[in-house]
């Protein structure tokens, strides 16, 4: 599995990680060797998409081409399976954002580009 396949799944609304066939470690996105046991025996594994916010920010100064999107929230989310992922937070009021807040993965498309997103659980 490569990044292209990972994002094809994201666009279809599915979050896919890889699980090490030797030690069971989970990872996103795909990589060659397992950091934990140095093996190369990955298997794709579907992830449920439910998780909780680890840390978050509200971006108010955006890179070129993204100014129309501000303000927007970005968070690191720890998924139930134990692996984390960074994405755009949508449909959650900024003042409700806090560590531990339950959220759920969803693909977010802005300007024809698909990104990892999280909405209310």
């Amino acid at each position, binding site marked *: 599995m490569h*990044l292209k396949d990972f*994002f094809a799944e994201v666009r279809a609304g599915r979050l896919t990680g890889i699980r090490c066939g030797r030690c069971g470690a989970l990872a*996103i*996105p795909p990589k060659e060797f397992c950091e934990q046991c140095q093996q190369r025996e990955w298997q794709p594994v579907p992830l449920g998409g439910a998780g909780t916010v*680890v*840390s*978050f*920010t*509200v*971006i*108010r*100064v*955006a*890179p*070129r*081409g*993204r*100014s129309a*999107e501000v303000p*927007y929230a*970005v*968070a*690191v*989310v720890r998924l139930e399976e134990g692996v*984390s*992922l*960074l*994405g*755009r937070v949508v449909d959650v009021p*900024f003042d409700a954002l806090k*560590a531990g807040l339950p959220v759920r993965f969803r693909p977010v498309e802005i300007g024809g*580009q*698909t*990104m*990892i997103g999280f909405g209310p659980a």
Partner: protein
Amino acid sequence: MRRVAVIGVGVTKFGKHDRTSAELFAQAAAEAILDAGIAPSAIQALYFGNVTGGETERQLHMAPLAATLLGLPTVPTTRFENACATSHVAFRHAVMEIASGVSDVVLVGGAERVLNVPTESATEFFAYCSDASIEQPAGLTFPGVFALIARAHMDKYGTTEEQMAHVAVKNHRHGTLNPKAQFQKEISLETVLKSAYVADPLKLYDCCPFTDGGAALVLASEDVARKHRRRIWVLGSHAATDTMFVHEKRDLSRVTATERAAQGAYRQAGKTPADVNVVELHDCFTIAEIVATEGLGFFEPGTGGLAAEKGWTSLGGRLPVNPSGGLKAKGHPIGATGAAQIAEIVTQLRGEAGPRQVDGASTGLTHTLGGNTATVLVSLFGRD
């Protein structure tokens, strides 16, 4: 391995320039060569750092260009790019070229020019230093990366926005003592706290500016350095890397690469944090200084904010941090920063820092962080 010393330093004024990156580096390099008192022809190699020249100036292959503009068109050159740690990485490799016996005198440094493009373009180019698959599409910016770190540090330790503001106030105060600093004006705690949010909880005055500037160092082997009275020895230089993905960091309230780079540098130098008298560290954002003072072993985890609030890191305090004004007030031309930090520590250890001199400083440390905390360099320096 042979001992290595810094025998010459040169830094341009930091701020806005109408000269190119290669010109800025060449100017700093000429000053470093004159400071060393060597013939330009003594330089055997150039290790050069620049990050965004391809985007801001449509100029790649900048290392031989810099050598050409310096008047040394036949010196072997290499260009380095490791985000904001670029010229500290170049420095470590230059040290290794001399330590290994390949060369006796090496010129190293870097330059950056970004004030010739709009802020949103500079923000975009800097964001290229984060991952392009997940992080850039999500709209993560560099203030955003450090905002995630700040939030985690606040949640875990109770660090406050006011404590972060104290870092900005202190570094701006130090900047008033540095004629090369981009900002040489004091700011109040209130000014910082009332400034607009850039990426919550970081506000405008928690962020370092975009800056043009160049910095250069002349390094020499022990045999050569012995002839130079103002030499400062490189006691240790260590590099550490961490995962590029912010979501893979094990604990967002720490920068583990800083901790590993520091441990390696202390071990090489045979020093401990208690031996260090003066520090130039990577305060790209106020929270970055707080986390770095903890990771470098100066303060217990969670107490870096208190150290800033109590003035322990001010000139005249327990351990002066960023007497130059730091990235926050001196400015942050990302390709030049690592070399500029080393130039400041060399100046301090020589006792030539004027009104910002840390009295009697004999051991100094520099810390440079690249990108989303993936690259960190720590080096230690000492007098004879």
